């Protein structure tokens, strides 16, 4: 590791041309440090049992808390504020190299994705195993709800049966996926995957927990349920930590209520089987990210023919990069979308009229991960 750092320093010191040459060769042969036998050193380590407040204070004080930004940062801001820290974080890349090399002490990770990469030893993993600890947003009381299903409120009004049929089939897909996570992972993998099949299986297992457990740790059996208390907490935190420069949007944000962002009636009718003939039979859903088990319910519903049984032809549109699912739905490119509730709130404050029709994830999947002392 020290050697690697030396090389890095030398490269930096060289002129741009030489540095770029280093990039080309270094870039090709660069392997994750996690592929070494022992976890790489870097950054401080915290003794097991250290209270999360002490870890947050130490890391934030040193300016070493990481998050991806782009609307994923509000829970972190809320946590920093809870412990009286500055609202600052480092922009974290989509890999966990910053955590591994110690430039980020307290890194953001989704339980189903980045945390798996940190802990696990399959290809691409950093092999930390049980030598890392996490701070859970749910335990800290700053949880904001994530993956939901939404559409334009005008679309829902014009196509209520389509919405109900879509929800009914999707929830059937989620139920099957949660009962058979390994099979669901393989189905997702079949439909084009950004990550390995082992990682998909890990992800399916973790996503199942988020879909079946609420922020308080209670089991949820009615899939897609919109827990009013958790939704309200999400809205309250969003009002506090979503900072909008546009004064019109900012004042709209402060006036938003749960009724202006969600409607539970479609899901209620769908679960009761009160579904008429779909008005629009060919629909599409925009995912928030690349095809992965995070969205296994939809892929299972498609693969098992649940959508077809409901009289729908469904196209799943993967996201990724800077695809904005709220804009895609708003502009009518797609009919449904999966986003985080905070993103939907920000979009409605900006002038969209989006409506959440189901809340698939019942608790926050965001944790902050840190290294344990030996």
């Amino acid at each position, binding site marked *: 590791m020290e050697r690697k*750092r030396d090389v*890095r*320093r030398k*490269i*930096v010191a060289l*002129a*741009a*041309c030489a*540095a*770029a*040459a*280093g*990039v*080309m060769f*270094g*870039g090709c042969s660069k392997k994750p440090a996690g592929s070494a036998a022992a976890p790489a050193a870097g950054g401080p380590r915290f003794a097991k049992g250290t209270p999360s407040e002490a870890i947050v204070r130490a890391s934030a004080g040193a*300016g070493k808390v990481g998050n991806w*930004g*782009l*609307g994923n940062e509000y829970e972190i801001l809320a946590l920093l504020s809870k412990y009286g820290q500055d609202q600052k974080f*480092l*922009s974290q*890349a989509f890999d966990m*190299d*910053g955590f591994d*090399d110690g*430039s980020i002490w307290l890194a953001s990770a989704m339980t189903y994705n980045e945390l798996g990469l940190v802990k696990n030893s399959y290809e691409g993993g950093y092999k930390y195993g049980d030598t890392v600890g996490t701070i859970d947003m749910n335990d800290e009381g700053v949880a904001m709800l994530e993956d939901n299903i939404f559409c334009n409120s005008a679309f829902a009004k014009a196509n209520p049966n389509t919405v109900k049929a879509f929800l009914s089939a999707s929830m059937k897909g989620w139920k099957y996926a949660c009962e058979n996570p390994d099979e669901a992972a393989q189905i997702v993998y079949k439909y084009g995957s950004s990550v390995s099949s082992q990682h998909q299986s890990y992800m399916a297992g973790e996503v199942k927990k988020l879909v079946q457990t609420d922020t308080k740790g209670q089991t949820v059996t009615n899939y897609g349920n919109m827990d009013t208390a958790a939704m309200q907490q999400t809205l309250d935190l969003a009002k506090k930590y*979503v900072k*909008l*420069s*546009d*004064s*019109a*949007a900012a004042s709209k944000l402060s006036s938003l209520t749960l009724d202006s962002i969600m409607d539970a009636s479609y899901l209620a009718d769908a679960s009761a089987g009160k579904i008429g003939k779909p008005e629009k039979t060919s629909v599409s859903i925009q995912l928030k990210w690349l095809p992965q088990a995070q969205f296994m319910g939809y892929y299972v519903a498609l693969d098992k023919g649940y959508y077809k049984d409901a009289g729908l032809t469904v196209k799943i549109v993967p996201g990724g990069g*800077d695809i*904005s699912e*709220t*804009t895609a739905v*708003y*502009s009518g490119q797609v009919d449904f979308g999966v986003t985080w509730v905070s*993103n939907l709130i*920000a*979009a409605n404050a*900006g*002038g*969209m009229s989006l409506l959440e029709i189901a809340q698939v994830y019942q608790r926050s999947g965001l944790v902050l991960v840190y290294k344990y002392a030996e």
Partner: protein
Amino acid sequence: MKKIHITNDSVKTVLYPLVFGIILVVLWQTQVLHRLLGADTFTLPLPSRIGSIIADNFGVIMLNVKATVFVALSGLLLGSLFGFILAAIAALSPHWGMGGLTIATAFNAVPIVAVAPIFTNLTKDFSSDPNVRSMFAKTLVVMITCTVSMGINAYRGFTELKPFSLDLMKSYAAGKWTAFFKLRLPNCVPYIFTALRISVPGCVISAMVSEYFAEYIVGVGRQIRESIVLAQYSTAWAYIVVACLVGVGMYVILLFFEHLLLKGRRIK
């Protein structure tokens, strides 16, 4: 007579684009443009709204502008200097220099989006302050884009001499260095500005793209990205307008200096 003619011409060159610009803004504000493009005021906010956002957030916007301009200018300066030196070496000893110039050109083909995150990773040990090391990483990215245009153009300036001028220098028994300073260097000056006319808009663009991948969140480009992902189109447009103003402003300053220094010696 001649003087008046030139003034007329310059009035035209300023007036026509200005009138066109004003008409565009009027069409935009009155939403005629929206009807033509099939856009709504959400994805294409009105100029008045964009203006009010810029006014409301002037301090924060200037903070981001400063960060972007600093990176763009320092990258431009270092890159151009490096490119110029490469070109000079190439002109003086083609043996060594041409190879270096060719390699530099090859690096220009590497897209900024590929280079930027790599530099962010490579410069992590540069400073313990994330703002400083991010600035450094971004500057390196800008530097690469500016090196090449200056290298190639300055090399042309050093070597594309008037016919027989080099022979003339030789007939004067001028040495390699005298020929360089008396002939090649003066010949190169207009080419330097040709390079800068490519590099100045380029450095602003690469500075903004490299902000996407930087560890420290600051800059006009980063704000555009954040705002669009959060569906805050009015704010995004405010930063887009500011980005345009920065780019145009820097270009105008360049043209001013070019006019001042070259007085019509500009190469076509």
